[in-house]
């Protein structure tokens, strides 16, 4: 199995796109559909190499989830990339300050997604 990437998005379409792109490149992908489930999946997958997370989601949004997992010291080194339609520089800076390592604006561009994964998680 390749390195493990956790994808957190309330859209099943986006999750399918991410799974198709990342697993096609050799990564193992684990899915979660909101920030609450995402935090739980991250806790349960200590070997994850990277998280890709939406911003606007029900129950707990991506920035709240990011703040929660970074407050938990055991995930301090886990790279988290936000994947969203949002382009607001205020939100980008907020995510960066909270510990995010990247920001991708939808729609997904597979080449940019894989380049980001390879840079932050390493080759699959």
């Amino acid at each position, binding site marked *: 199995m390749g390195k493990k990437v956790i994808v957190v998005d309330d859209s099943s379409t986006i999750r399918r796109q991410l799974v*198709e792109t990342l697993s096609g490149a050799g990564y193992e992908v684990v899915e979660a559909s909101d920030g609450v489930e995402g935090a739980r999946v991250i806790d349960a997958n200590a070997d994850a190499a990277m998280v890709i997370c939406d911003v606007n989601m029900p129950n707990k949004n991506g920035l709240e989830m990011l703040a929660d997992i970074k407050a938990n010291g055991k995930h301090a080194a886990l790279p988290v990339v936000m994947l969203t339609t949002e382009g607001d*520089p205020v939100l980008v800076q907020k995510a960066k300050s909270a510990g995010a390592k990247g920001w991708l604006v939808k729609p997904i561009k597979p080449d940019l997604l894989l380049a980001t994964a390879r840079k932050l998680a390493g080759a699959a």
Partner: protein
Amino acid sequence: MRNPEELFHTSLRESCDALFESLPLTVLAALGRARDCALNTQQLASMVGFVSSEVKGAITVRAPISFFSGTYPTSKKEALGLREVSDWAAEIANQLLGRMKNMILPYGVSLSVATPATVYGNFLKEAEPREGSLRIVFPWHDDEICVSLEMSFEPGFLLLDEPASENVPLQAGDALVF
């Protein structure tokens, strides 16, 4: 100061063109007025609301299921059910509003976006358009794709004439690694 209605309308038109251009099926240029209701084809309509201190509204994308299933963005389309296609319809509305939001932001308006909702049925019809609303219709085979914008502004609300240079948002497809 700039009239906000004009900016919202222009932003939606340009966002539609850019979004449809990014899809794997060709959507022709916009037509005039929408039909009073859809033909008897199975349709989906996805809606997403937005709000700021000065404006509130929603956009709706209504189209035949064949449009959403044909543009579904994965290579494996054989197992697509209504649930999957509805989710993609919601994501299209979400991405459309995201593009529009990022075009409006430099004029000083930061929209908060709701979670999209989708309805399914035959003979779907939008509410009668209110003053200031916009309806853009694109031909789709023998049917149509209808994109609607409904909004209302706080009295006296005006925008910056020019986009602010210090508040430039990222745009669709952009990527940053910190």
